[in-house]
């Protein structure tokens, strides 16, 4: 049996996404900026995709900007806002457990003379509103907080965070990294007070290399990429029509029968957690109940190196990641796990299981069965 439990790293695309991409590559392959019919067809594909996305967030189409994915969206949100607002202030706030595409971008801004405040998190991975309130100042131009943490699935109360920021400084822009949240939650930027929102296509069964940034029409940001002035000059470069087509199709599909889909993910999550609890020496990180995101289970396995367990599971067709896949290339300790206070000896013993729409309860049962078989053997052999 094969069980792909690494959907927070990336997902298999929906069949409708594959079809949309092929159609855009082979039939409607025009340049969206071209004046002729082929160009118009391509432009229509982009408009359709934009419409679908705008509908999913209940925002205006013109507030959606296509990017190459989550990392670019995050870079643009941070650097673009910082550049456009540096006269108003040079202070930014974020949390200590953000994705690399946030904290490395913040580090870049710090080098460029901006001041960054990093808020600590509690044992469930959430920031404290009191800390936030104290941190927001007159010269704070941006606060960036992730909606769902990519390593443990902690969910931040974005609406309350926004209220807290705006009460203190109404001019501060609020950016939300929603890369692990979009497709899992009904996100309403206008209602929740989100000014900028980053999304990636391939986490929701769409294509890699495409994503978007929602930019509230009142927010000013500077582009990062210059050229032929596509997307109203906000992001030059020939539009990735196949990517947009695929992303539009994925958005439509993921938000169809949405509550059933989320129920199914929670079902898998709860089934896995119940199974893990029958095994000795396993700790679940983050909330076990539905306060946590539906797709992520972070579990620490006492006395086993996560990488060894990962490869042992791989031999049995089960694919998971150690810590966060995005930082797995750089062995080192996970920021989130450390941030929530996971015990030192468990930091290197933690796996992330992440579900997608194609997973089944049978796969979860299989994983539990395999874990029960592997753990005693792996625990016997360790560096003494």
């Amino acid at each position, binding site marked *: 049996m094969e069980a792909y439990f690494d959907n927070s790293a990336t997902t298999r695309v929906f069949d409708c996404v594959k079809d949309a991409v092929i159609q855009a590559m082979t039939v409607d392959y025009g340049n969206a900026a071209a004046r002729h019919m082929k160009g118009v067809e391509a432009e229509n594909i982009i408009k359709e995709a934009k419409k679908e996305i705008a509908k999913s967030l209940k925002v205006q189409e013109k507030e959606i900007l296509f990017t190459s994915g989550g990392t670019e969206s995050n870079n643009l949100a941070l650097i673009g806002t910082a550049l456009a607002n540096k006269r108003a202030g040079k202070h930014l706030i974020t949390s200590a457990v953000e994705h690399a595409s946030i904290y490395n971008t913040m580090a870049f801004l710090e080098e460029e003379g901006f001041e960054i405040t990093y808020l600590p998190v509690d044992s469930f991975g959430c920031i404290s509103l009191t800390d936030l309130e104290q941190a927001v100042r007159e010269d704070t131009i941006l606060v960036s907080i992730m909606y769902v943490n990519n390593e443990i699935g902690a969910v931040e109360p974005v609406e309350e965070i926004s209220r807290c920021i705006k009460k203190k400084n109404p001019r501060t822009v609020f950016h939300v990294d929603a890369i692990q949240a979009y497709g899992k939650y009904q996100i309403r930027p206008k209602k929740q007070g989100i000014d900028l929102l980053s999304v990636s296509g391939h986490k929701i069964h769409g294509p890699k290399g495409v994503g978007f940034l929602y930019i509230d029409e009142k927010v000013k940001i500077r582009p990062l990429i210059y050229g032929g002035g596509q997307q109203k000059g906000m992001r030059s470069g020939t539009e990735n029509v196949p990517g947009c087509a695929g992303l539009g199709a994925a958005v439509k599909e993921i938000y169809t029968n949405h509550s059933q889909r989320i129920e199914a993910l929670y079902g898998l999550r709860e089934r896995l957690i119940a199974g893990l609890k029958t095994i000795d020496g396993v700790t679940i990180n983050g909330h076990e109940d539905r306060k946590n995101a539906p797709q992520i289970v972070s579990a620490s396995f006492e006395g086993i190196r996560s*990488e*060894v*367990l*990962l*490869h*042992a*599971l*791989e*031999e049995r067709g089960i694919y998971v990641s150690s810590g966060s896949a995005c930082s797995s290339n750089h*062995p080192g300790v996970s920021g989130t796990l450390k941030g929530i206070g996971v015990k030192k000896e468990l930091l290197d013993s933690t796996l992330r299981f992440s579900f997608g729409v194609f997973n089944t309860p049978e796969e979860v049962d299989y994983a539990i069965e395999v874990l029960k078989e592997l753990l005693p053997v792996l625990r016997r*052999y*360790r*560096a*003494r």
Partner: protein
Amino acid sequence: MFQSFLIKYAEIGIKGKNRYLFEDALMSHIHHALKRLDGQFTVTKESGRIYAHAAEEFDYDEVVDALKCVFGVAAICPLVRIEDQGFEDLKKQVIRYIDETYPDKNFTFKVNARRVNKQYPGSSEQINRDLGEVILETFPETKVNVHNPDVLLNVEIRSKGINIYSRIIPGPGGMPVGTNGKAMLLLSGGIDSPVAGYMIAKRGVTIEATYFHAPPYTSERAKQKVVDLAREVSRYSGPIKLHVVNFTDIQLYIYDKCPHEELTIIMRRYMMKIAEELAKKDNCLGLITGESIGQVASQTVHSLAVTNEVCTLPVFRPVIGFDKQDIVDIALKIGTYETSIEPYEDCCTIFVAKHPVTKPVLEKIQKSERNLEEKIDEMMKEAIETAEIVWC
């Protein structure tokens, strides 16, 4: 401008009656190295010299880089070959050659003419003088220096045409691979073993390699890294047959049955045994390791002696007396360093004891190994039989 390369070889020139074997091997390696590139090349042997000619357009730098990887090549001289259309024409060609090859004319030179074709009018001396004169006239910034010139301009007058060359690019030296038997390299993912393989291949030895894979303790990426390393060494050594041995069961068996501080040394003895079996099956005449005295606990002189004891084939350890930095320098030069430092764990480090033995005593190790008697032969046989072969 250059269409041909004169390839000089040093050591193989002295091999007496076997010389033609070495030359033929060298020619064949040059041919293979060039075959992978864009363009048509012919490799010929003319009066004891090897030439590579390009029949059409080619990328000069690419050819030089490829020839620099062929063991046995002492130097590469890019040359211009012209037809004999009289001495006046030769003068013009020489001027053109100098002009195009040396944009900065501020150098000293010496002309070295050779009349291989004895029918050619004048003496070599006279030709040297006449060509020198015309160069000095055309490029007044140049100066003659017969003892230590910056540019030694060679003009070889042959019956088939005239070769003009002055640039000498050093080759890797060594001897053509395949002229000196075959040996089995124990290839880990580290810095030392690819260097060791390179060094032995440079002496004309064909290389095979054995890698010990320990899933799930070592990853697919660690294996891919070793495949990549073998490919990098193969740029010099020619294709490498890599044997990937699954070593997990043996390693765990040793873990269960032997004192933990002896794990690494015992493991290495079994690695040597398995590599030797594979070597013998493929007619390899020796083993190659990247061991260097004192680098780690398993490479103290005591440990090396204990490891070596299981081998009947000679073990070549070309970096045995090298400091780490010396090995790193070679790895950087041959291009394996970047791959070697990728951070994937190899099977030697996974269960390593905090305090492994550094002065193992053979009798004691042998006594510990008696605990393995029940299953180890069967396990070794299985490991050898199930070894996966990857051509790199």
